[in-house]
């Protein structure tokens, strides 16, 4: 298979491979990574053809473009040798084509005259066509990879452009600053599009977001062709009478308006007000066969309980009979607001997974964001379900906490061993106040202090165990698996 060079953006590094793999899976093409480093924007992959490469990159948010690899080397001498060897037979195809020839440096660069010298050094390719910067028939590029503050590049690539990604255009179009209606916790547009890609969104599929807010995720999914619907416990955010996060904004601003802004209203089924723990969506009983799901995917960013409260229907304390009677008498009145109570974050995550198992089709995906303090042993607290396979974990790190995008695949019925569905009743945090119920919230508001000392202790223990026994192998295995 030919080798291709993917020019990645040097951002959200842990998402990059996952996104490319997900897009390859959606397009149904085989993708093999030949060379990939978190620290480098250059990635070499094996793909069967230009059209496969185009299919992947024309949806990618974290790639900038894909090039057929025509040569590589650590010096210009070896690069030219490699170009002659790898691509010599291709030169005649492009002999009379109009072309563009550019030089790009990562963490370094060249002056215009040096660039011209570099380009001239490729004269042996004998391109006779017109040089054209705009819309040429073919575009070539020399890539120089520098170490930080180095004078000379450490490695060079040369490639023929196959496809450019929609990254810049999509980021510009969906920029939150230009979006009609947003709220305080709207997710960055780049990350919503990325989430949609990782969740295997594709034309014709049906996607749902149980915590839609102002609709950031459904919009991203609809942009890639899915039909979407969503819900939120706060009807005001959906109907839009709650106003906007922008100062002084008045008038009708709602989720439908967002879809209208991007011209994807026809992919929006609608939204309803509901609580995931009392969802109105059809939940086939677990005793029925597992193939009755109807959602192709679920994407969500559950409320963390910090800026957005984590609440479900119910009351903090069990209602007295007289109180129940009051609710019953008054619930039809126009201004009635149902009581809500804080809820355990870990319980909510497990509820989301159970909901996903009941509603997803086989091989359907659920992608959800989960915040954690940076010093927790993450392997222990990633929620799991026997009917779901964790396919990827991507991390967006902040200072003292980070959030992870967890993606699961709904296993096929044949993959789920019998009897696994009768899961053990889990113990969740008990209490009536938000902080008692939400570990992450408590740590957040304590500035993650109590964990500074624990972190040091944890590192010390790890060092000790590493010195005494060779557990490194298993750690590496675990990394490879994720």
């Amino acid at each position, binding site marked *: 298979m030919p080798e291709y060079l993917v020019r990645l953006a040097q951002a959200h590094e842990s998402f990059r491979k996952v996104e490319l793999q997900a897009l390859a899976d959606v397009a149904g093409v085989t993708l093999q990574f030949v060379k990939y480093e978190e620290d480098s924007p250059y990635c070499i992959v094996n793909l069967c053809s230009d059209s496969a490469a185009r299919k992947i990159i024309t949806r990618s948010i974290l790639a900038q473009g894909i090039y057929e690899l025509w040569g590589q080397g650590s010096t210009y001498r070896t690069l030219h040798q490699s170009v002659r060897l790898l691509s010599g037979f291709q030169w005649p195809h492009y002999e009379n084509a109009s072309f563009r020839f550019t030089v790009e440096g990562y963490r370094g660069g060249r002056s215009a005259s040096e660039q011209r010298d570099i380009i001239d050094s490729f004269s042996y390719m004998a391109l006779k066509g017109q040089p054209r910067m705009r819309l040429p028939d073919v575009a070539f590029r020399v890539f120089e990879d520098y170490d930080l503050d180095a004078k000379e590049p450490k490695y060079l690539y040369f490639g023929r452009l196959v496809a450019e990604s929609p990254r810049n255009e999509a980021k510009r179009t969906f920029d939150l600053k230009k979006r009609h209606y947003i709220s305080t916790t709207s997710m960055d547009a780049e990350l919503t599009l990325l989430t949609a890609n990782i969740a295997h969104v594709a*034309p*014709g*599929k*049906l996607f749902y977001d149980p915590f839609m807010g102002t609709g950031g995720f459904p919009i991203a999914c609809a942009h890639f*062709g899915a*039909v979407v*619907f969503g*819900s939120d*416990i706060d*009807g005001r955010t*959906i*109907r839009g009478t709650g106003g906007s996060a922008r100062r002084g904004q008045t008038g009708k601003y709602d989720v*439908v308006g967002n879809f209208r802004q991007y011209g994807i*209203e*026809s*992919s929006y*089924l*609608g*939204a*309803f*007000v*509901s*609580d995931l723990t*009392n*969802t*109105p*969506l*059809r*939940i086939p*009983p677990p005793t029925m066969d597992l193939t009755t799901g*109807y959602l*192709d995917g679920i994407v969500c960013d559950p409320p963390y309980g910090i800026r957005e409260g984590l609440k479900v*229907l*119910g*009351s903090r304390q069990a*209602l007295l009979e007289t*109180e*129940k*009677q009051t*609710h*019953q008498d008054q*619930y*039809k009145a126009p201004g*009635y607001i*149902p*009581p809500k109570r804080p809820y355990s974050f870990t319980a909510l995550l497990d509820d989301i997974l159970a909901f996903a198992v009941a509603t997803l*089709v086989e091989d359907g995906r659920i992608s959800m964001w989960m915040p954690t303090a940076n010093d927790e042993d993450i392997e222990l607290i990633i929620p799991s379900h026997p009917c779901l396979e964790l396919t990827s974990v991507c991390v967006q790190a902040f200072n003292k906490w980070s959030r992870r995008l967890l993606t699961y695949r709904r296993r096929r019925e044949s993959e789920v061993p019998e009897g696994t569905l009768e899961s053990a009743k889990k113990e969740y945090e008990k209490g009536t106040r938000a902080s008692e119920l939400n570990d992450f919230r408590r740590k957040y508001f304590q500035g993650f202090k109590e964990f500074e000392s624990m972190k040091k202790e944890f590192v010390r223990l790890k060092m000790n165990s590493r010195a005494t026994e060779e557990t490194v192998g298993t750690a590496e295995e675990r990394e490879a698996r994720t």
Partner: protein
Amino acid sequence: MKLLTLNFLTCAIKTCKTNSASFPLHPRDAELEIVEADVNLPFLKNILPRLMWDELRGICTELGLPELPATPPTPADLIQPSSSTPETTDAAPIAEADEEPSQTAKDLHRVLLETCIQEGKLVCGACEHEYAVKEGVANFLLPGHLV
């Protein structure tokens, strides 16, 4: 909310979930609106096996919409038979992108994806609980005594 949403919604009360009468929810005093949209053939094909056909037919009757056929269409029914030389069997199969929606697909699209409920109520057939629809958004939050 587009009418297709009713294909997925039941009563939010937990004890109703196991009662078959809780699905579908019955629209009452519904104000309908038609919002034109392009026919999305790949989506119709994908969603077809997941439609609860008899229940959807019932909803259409209750809303006074044109009746759906007694049996669900097959995926082939959704595609307009190619008008130009359908006899040539040696020609390459038509690419998915070139497929034209048939009248069946257009009718289905009209009902499921262009008909929207703007105002009204959705009523559970088992417990009679009413869920209000306002500005096209249904409210499924349960009052204190039902949680």
